[in-house]
Each structure stands twice: as structure tokens, then as C-alpha cells.
């Protein structure tokens, strides 16, 4: 394939606007995947993605399309996630592209991540093809969408393609636009070979599989290569393309997207954003790297079985290869023993990682209450960063505590503005300014403490606006705040893993909610169990775990003690799957559950 007939593009949008469904239609129309094997949301190949109906990872696939002008084009598509926690995936995918399909749900209009993702594409100088999707919906509002396109995104309305990924409307037009409007591969004339690493995944048989975009030159099996960030040398064992499954090929040349397997054993040596070049003919300059991602949310992850520590560590290492935004570091807890402090981009990210560890690495884990990074100025003048409530110094040693805040861009329908402002206030936020988007919608720009929006802000925003509100955010400055450490005691014993840092004025309410939820999640025990919240030694809230009323089997016959013991043993086994603190069994997913909003 001639390089100037290759097109690299991502599909980007707000969450649920139909990216993966549109990918299905493109795969189908280009006969990349035959009708027979095509499943719905085909590229969401991870079990977790299919179960939840959301995209978590970017998925590349190469297609071929014969355009109306008679020319054959190679189209490299990247389906990206829409959820704000995974925007890092989006920006990495965009870095491997020259264009982007920007989807807008015709019934929802432009939402917060539509704007955020469009901006990412503009920043990288990509051609944007706007697509109004879901026009089949009765509630589709084309006029509004087209107007928003011009007003909010400064994209001419006539560029928009009207489509329905579900009903296959506009697919041909989209393919034509990709072939004709998106620029051919850039940076091809460098002279030496330059290949960008945009992702990687660990494979039990082949080791690290590196996802690459070739910008100039070519790469094939047997090549001696160098990872430019640290000059690691390696030999290429295999290259191939995504169809979307991995398929071996001869060579990858400029403009291609594919994968590479080399003889690097240690998965930690693969760096996302690195540039690969030939050892014998090295490029002088690396490709533009990625902005380093900084985790915003931290939580401890511990093996339920202490003996699983090493297994967990190895699993996390491999997982990190597939998720550069995830970080981990050994730590220990009184209640949980040895584990890891892990960093995530948000709560969904945290939940997904934990679930992947459980499934892909088969380790039962328990996690602690999430925290953000606080800056603590001590009386002695020193400033420390605290991402674990356990490490908060004694109040007497603290001069002041600063907490991270975010700048949130919130899109809401006009009629819910009052409720949203109350919500922002309730979350200790301030609204800096509001802007009219169009006759039905407003945009608010607010400053909010990060720790307040983590848990249920988005859910409440959705419920107040009946699904029409959306939010995007970026980190803002640190602000001084009256924060205290809230401890949780189960059956009178403090459980450090459940401690959290909360605003002084909210401790009572939060403690109450937390205790009640925990009491609900901890299964019935033989005894009544008290769950208490305390600040500085004072109990501020309390709830009881219900005690069970009946657990008896009548028969105990013929002296068959062994049989009865087995029965009791089974019960005990059930408890072993949980984390036993004192004589209370706590389910490993207790904290994920506590964080789930059940307000509505």
C-alpha cells in the first residue's frame, strides 16, 4: 500500500454516543469482519467492556476501503473510550492519527467530553470530521446539534455527516470523508525509521506485545532496534496488524499501525510514548512524547490471602504494561497486612483495575477507602504530601492542610441550574462563571475540591438533569481547607484501611452514611456488630450490622460427625473468602460497594 493512501483516525466522543457501534458498521462495510462473526460492539473485546457496555481501552483495527474515485485506501481505526477517567487513552490514540471522527449523539447534543476530546484533537493538529449520530432517535434534534457544532466547537455545520450507527445510515459518506478529508501520514520524510509506541499488553506466551504506529521507514522481523528513551537494544521477533485480532505480517511501513514482539523480557522496560528506531541507523530525534499522566486518586490494594502478595505484585506489573496510567508501590496496613498503594485517574478507573486484577490475575483483593493527595504544612515548616489517611500527622503537628481542587466544566439544561448550584455548594464548590450555550443549555465553570467529586458527583449530576448534564474537569490549584481524619471502627476495633480524610463540617454526615452502608454490606454475623465513625477519638456516627436469626440444620444422625463437620466447614470457607478483621468478615469489594451511589 502506498503511504499516501493510508489514513489513520480515531473515533472520539462523549461517553455512549455510539463510537463502538459506528466501528461495527465500518468493519462491516469494509468487510474487515464478516457478518457471520461480527458481534455487537465488536471491538469491546474485554469481558469487562462487554459486561458494562463501555469501552475501557482504545482498540486499533486496520481496514481496506475502495473509494468512489476507484482508489484503494488502508484505514487504521482506533476506537476510544468516552469516560473521563480514560481520556489518557484518547490522547495516546490521537497521537497515532492524522484525523478524528467526532461523534455527537443527536439526542444529547454536545456534552462535556465532546468538547474536551475535540480540544485534544485540535491540539494535535488533527482533521476533525463531525458526525451527528443516532439520527434515527425520535428525540434527535439536528438543528440544535448543528448549531452547537458551530457555536461551541467552531466547526462549520456543513462539514457534519448525519448518521445512525445503529441503522447503518451515512456509513458510506463517513468512509468517503475519511479517505478524502483526512491527511495522509505525516512525518514520513525523516530519513531514519521512527516508530511510536502507543500501548502494550502482556501475553502469557509471547511476553510484552507493543502497539505501534510507524511514522517513517520500516520495521520487520529480525531488525535490531533501540528504544530511544533509554537506549535499550532489542531484536524484533514478530510484527503484525490488527484485524482486529493480531495477524502476523512481513513488514510495517510508514503510516501503518500494528504490533511488535521483541526479546525484551522485563515488561517494565516498555514505555508508552517511546520512539523505536533502528540500531544501525538511528534517528536523531524522538517523536513528540506524551504528557505524563499523574494519578489523582489513591487507594490501597491488598491480597485477601497474605500469601498472594507476590502474585499480586507480578499481576500489577503486567497490568501496568497495558495501563500506563496506573501506578503502584508497596505499603502495609495494620488491618490488611502487606499490599500496595495504587494510583488511578478516577474511581471508574480504580474499579476497572481492581476487577481486572481479580479476573486476569486471579487474586482476591480488598481495597481501602480512596484518597487524593493532600499537602500538609507541618508546624515545623516542612511540607509533606499525604495520599494515605494513615500518614496524616497528629493534628497538633499540623499547621494547615491543602487539598487539590479541580476546574469543572459542567453542561446542564437551563431548568436544572438551581439544583446544580445547590449540588456544587453542597460539595464545597464555587461557581466562577456561567455561560449560555444555546436556548436550552448553560455551561458552568466551577472550582470544586477533588475529593468531593470523586464519589457521587457525576451520578447526582446525571440524576438531577435526567441524564442531560455532563462534566469534564482538569486539575486546578491546591486550597487550604479544614480537614480531619475520620476513623472507622468495626466491633470496637479501628480498621485503618477504612480511614478517610474529610472536611470537618461534613464528618458527621459522611460518617453516618459510611457506617450505614458498611453495616449493610457486611453480611449478617452471629453477633450484632457495631460500625462506628470517630474523629479525634470522639464517636460521631454508628450503625449496626444485623445479626442473623436462624442458622441451624436439624439432622445430625447416625454418628456422622464428619458429614456435619463438612457442612460447617463450608460455612467457614465462605468466610475465608472474606477479610477477617477481629472476628468480623468483610467482603473484599466492600469499599467499591460503599462508594456506589444508591441515592436514586
Amino acid at each position, binding site marked *: 500500500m502506498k503511504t499516501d493512501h493510508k489514513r489513520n483516525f480515531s473515533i472520539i466522543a462523549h461517553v455512549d454516543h455510539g463510537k463502538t457501534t459506528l466501528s461495527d458498521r465500518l468493519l462491516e462495510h469494509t468487510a474487515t469482519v464478516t457478518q457471520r462473526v461480527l458481534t455487537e460492539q465488536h471491538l469491546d473485546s474485554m469481558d469487562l467492556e462487554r459486561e458494562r457496555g463501555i469501552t475501557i481501552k482504545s482498540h486499533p483495527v486496520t481496514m481496506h476501503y475502495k473509494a468512489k474515485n476507484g482508489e484503494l485506501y488502508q484505514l487504521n481505526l482506533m476506537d476510544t473510550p468516552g469516560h473521563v477517567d480514560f481520556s489518557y487513552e484518547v490522547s495516546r490514540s490521537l497521537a497515532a492519527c492524522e484525523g478524528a471522527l467526532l461523534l455527537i449523539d443527536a439526542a444529547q447534543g454536545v456534552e462535556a467530553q465532546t468538547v474536551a476530546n475535540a480540544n485534544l484533537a485540535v491540539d494535535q493538529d488533527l482533521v476533525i470530521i463531525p458526525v451527528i449520530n443516532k439520527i434515527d432517535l425520535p428525540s434527535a434534534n439536528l438543528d440544535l446539534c448543528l448549531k452547537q457544532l458551530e457555536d461551541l466547537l467552531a466547526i462549520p455545520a456543513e462539514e457534519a455527516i448525519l448518521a445512525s450507527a445503529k441503522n447503518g445510515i451515512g456509513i458510506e459518506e463517513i468512509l468517503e470523508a475519511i479517505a478524502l478529508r483526512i491527511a495522509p501520514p505525516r512525518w514520513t520524510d525523516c530519513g531514519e525509521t521512527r516508530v511510536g509506541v502507543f500501548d502494550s499488553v502482556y501475553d502469557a506466551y509471547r511476553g510484552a506485545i507493543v502497539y505501534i504506529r510507524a511514522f517513517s521507514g520500516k520495521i520487520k522481523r529480525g531488525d535490531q532496534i533501540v528504544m530511544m528513551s533509554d537506549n535499550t537494544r532489542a531484536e524484533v521477533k514478530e510484527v503484525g496488524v490488527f484485524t482486529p485480532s493480531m495477524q502476523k505480517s512481513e513488514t510495517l511501513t510508514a503510516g501503518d499501525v500494528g504490533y511488535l514482539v521483541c526479546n525484551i523480557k522485563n515488561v517494565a522496560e516498555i514505555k508508552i510514548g517511546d520512539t523505536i528506531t533502528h540500531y544501525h541507523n538511528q534517528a536523531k530525534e524522538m517523536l513528540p512524547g506524551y504528557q505524563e499522566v499523574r494519578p489523582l486518586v489513591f487507594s490501597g490494594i491488598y491480597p485477601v490471602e497474605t500469601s498472594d502478595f507476590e502474585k499480586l505484585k507480578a499481576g500489577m506489573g503486567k497490568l501496568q504494561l497495558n495501563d500506563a496510567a496506573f501506578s503502584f508501590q508497596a505499603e502495609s496496613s495494620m488491618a490488611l497486612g502487606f499490599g500496595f498503594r495504587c494510583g488511578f485517574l478516577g474511581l471508574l478507573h480504580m474499579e476497572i483495575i481492581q476487577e481486572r486484577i481479580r479476573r486476569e490475575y486471579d487474586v482476591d483483593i480488598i481495597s481501602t477507602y480512596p484518597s487524593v493527595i493532600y499537602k500538609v504544612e507541618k508546624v515545623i515548616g516542612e511540607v509533606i504530601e499525604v495520599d494515605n489517611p494513615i500518614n496524616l500527622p497528629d493534628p497538633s503537628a499540623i499547621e494547615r492542610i491543602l487539598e487539590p481542587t479541580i476546574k469543572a466544566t459542567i453542561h446542564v439544561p437551563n431548568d436544572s441550574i438551581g439544583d446544580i448550584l445547590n449540588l456544587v455548594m453542597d460539595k464545597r464548590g464555587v461557581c466562577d462563571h456561567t455561560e449560555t450555550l444555546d436556548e436550552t443549555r448553560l455551561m458552568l465553570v466551577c472550582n470544586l475540591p477533588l475529593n468531593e467529586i470523586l464519589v457521587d458527583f457525576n451520578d447526582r449530576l446525571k440524576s438531577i438533569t435526567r441524564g442531560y448534564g455532563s462534566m469534564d474537569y482538569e486539575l486546578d490549584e491546591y486550597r487550604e481547607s479544614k480537614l480531619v481524619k475520620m476513623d472507622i471502627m468495626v466491633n470496637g476495633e479501628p480498621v485503618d484501611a477504612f480511614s478517610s480524610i474529610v472536611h470537618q463540617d461534613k464528618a458527621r454526615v459522611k460518617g453516618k452514611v459510611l457506617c450505614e452502608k458498611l453495616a449493610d454490606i457486611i453480611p449478617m454475623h*452471629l453477633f450484632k456488630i457495631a460500625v462506628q465513625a470517630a474523629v479525634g477519638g470522639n464517636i460521631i456516627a454508628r450503625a449496626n450490622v444485623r445479626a442473623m436469626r*436462624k442458622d*441451624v440444620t*436439624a439432622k*445430625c*444422625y447416625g454418628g456422622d*460427625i464428619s458429614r456435619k463437620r463438612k457442612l460447617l466447614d463450608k460455612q467457614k470457607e465462605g468466610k475465608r473468602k472474606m477479610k477477617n478483621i477481629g*472476628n468480623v468478615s468483610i467482603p473484599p469489594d466492600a469499599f467499591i460497594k460503599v462508594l456506589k451511589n444508591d441515592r436514586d
Partner: protein
Amino acid sequence: MQAGLKATIETKKNELGSEFQPKWWGKTLGLYVHVPFCATSCDFCAFYQVQGDRAGIRAYLEGIEEEAAQAAVAGQELRTCFFGGGTPGLLKAKDLQILCETVRRNFRGSLVEWTVEMAPSTVKIDKLKVLKEQGVTRISMGVQSFDDALLDKLGRQHSRKQILKAYDLIREEGFESVNLDLIFAIPGQNEARLKEDIRQAAQLGPDHLSTYCLTFEEDTALFVQLSEGKVALDVDLETRLYLTCWEELERLGYEQYEISNFARRGKQCLHNVNTWKMDQWIGLGPSAASQFRGRRYSNVPDLDRWLEGVKANHPNWIDQSDLNEALLLEDALIFGLRMSDGVDLNELQERFGRKLTRSQSKTIEALESDGKLRKSGGRIRLTKAGRLLSDAVGSTLMV
């Protein structure tokens, strides 16, 4: 080694006989004989049972003869015996006689209690006469319910009329003690219907009653119905029915001495009480469990394989475990607490020569402060609320 010395050692060992065992056990021994034959399979049954033919029964009786001879060791005095099943009553009078003689021939000691289980439909005058002659003292009859509709639900093979008839026959023969088994929480059975069953049972005047909550055990027809959603579990109702049994029977003068066992004063089933106190017993027949000479084991639940083992003098055992003080203490505690009398902690700790674990003691304390257990004069007993939780208590006490 000299032949003489070898012989001496053997004799010494034999003389030691019952002494050749840890001090936790008394000299008495219980015998359980499992008779695995049933006419048909009941819907709720998880016992090991087969449909018996002539040849199968003959082979079984021969097998028991051999197994008894192998198990009967010098010095051990049999004190109680229990024929359970299956349906022991299904055996013909002649076969029952063989089985009883086998026991008497092989084991020493005078039995203070000898129970035979009988299904109402199997009670016949000739059988009762043989049993009485042989020294059987107690008949345990699986009545289950007096309500013909509920009996149908259980896939049972008898009617209320048959029960009454059978009971009269047993009494006429003059057995010392009679037990009736009732089942409760049968689909469709509410408190009123259970009370009615209890009333009718008590009216007959047995000196012992057992009430079992219907359990849905795997591999039973009832379990299949449950998983198909044809019947449903109702834990709250079960709880109420347990309490109904306890309260009604107490009112009628039957003292509860275990979760599901009630008796007139002095009429408790000694055989069962001894197993719950972690004494020794030998089980004969397929699937029968034993706790004997420092070991616990069960025969394979398979007639043919059991026979094979017995014939080869190489028993086919499953679930074997060596006993030790800690395990026995734990079990004596768990099973003892199922009894209304509870356990005497000092006695128990002395008997097994070790203390409760810290967590066991903590559990006991917590149960007490929670009103689930009461202490008095060195004994601990579960309260009603505690007894309703005895499985949870048991699993918590397990180390």
C-alpha cells in the same frame, strides 16, 4: 524375633484391648448398623439406600457378619446399638433375626438400649416378635406426618391409617421405648398444620419424639424441585416452625434435650447422646461412620464396594482422619452445645487435657453477652435464640 516373645506381645496387646486407647474414652461402645435397603426412594432422602433384592440382602447379611467379626475386639463392651437406614424394617423377620444374632454373637456386653428404625408400612407382627425376642428395646418409627396430603408431598409410602395401625402393634408387643420421627416445613405446612401433627403424635403417647426440618439436600428429588423453582425456601417460616416444635412439645411434657430430640424424663436416646458427647462407636454396613480407637472414618456408600472391602479384610473407608485432643474437644463443644444440657467446660477441658483456644473462649463470651448462651455452675448452654444459630455457632467455634 522369638516366636514365643511375639506371641506374648500379641496376648498382652489383646489383654490391653480397650486400654489400648487414649484416656478420653470410657469403656463403653455404641454400635450402628446401616441397613441400606428401601422399597422406593423418598423425595427428600440423602441417605445411602438401594432397592434390595434377595441376593443383595443375603450378601449384605454375610458382609455384616464378617465386618462384625473384624470389628469386635476383645475387651470392648457394647452398651447401645442402633439399626438405622435405609429401612431396617424392610428386612424379613428371618433376616432381622440373623442380623440381631450377628450382633449378639460378635460383641460382648449387655445392651442397655437397642433401637431399630422402622417405616410404618414395614411394621409386621412377626418382625416385632423377633426383635423383642432378640432383646431390642426401642422402636423408632418414621412417621414424618399424620397429614396424608403432606405425606404425599414427601413421596412417602404410607398413610395416617397405617401409622396408627403400626403404632398399636408395636405397643402390643411391649417395647420399652418408642420414638416417632416427624418432619416439618414440608411445602404447604404452616404452623397450624405442624401443631396438629405434633398433637396427634403426642396423643399416641410415645416416650420420645424427633422433629426434623425438611432439608433440601443435593441429589434429592426435592432439591431438583427447589432449583427448578417449584418449591421455595422460607427461612422465616422455618424459624417459626422450629420454635413451634420446641414450645408445643415442651407444653405436652416432652423435654427437649437436643435441637431435634424430645423425650419424657429419662428416655433420651443414649446411643445418640453418646455420639454427640464424642464417645466411641463402630458403624457397620455401607456408608456407616465410626469413631473408634483414635480414628474417625466412614464405610464407602456403595454396597458392592463395601462388600469387596469386607471380604478382603481390607475395609473401604472414606473421610478418614486421626483424632486428637484438639479436634475432639472442638467437636464435643460444637455437638455438646446442640444439646439442651450444654457442656461442662471444666470437665471437657480435663477430659481432653487442653484448654479452649482463645478465639473459642472469646466466642463463648460474646455469645453470652449477646444473650445467646448462658453459664451456670460450670456448664454452658445455648439459649433458644442461640440454638437457632447452632450451625453458625459451630462454624465459629471451629478452629
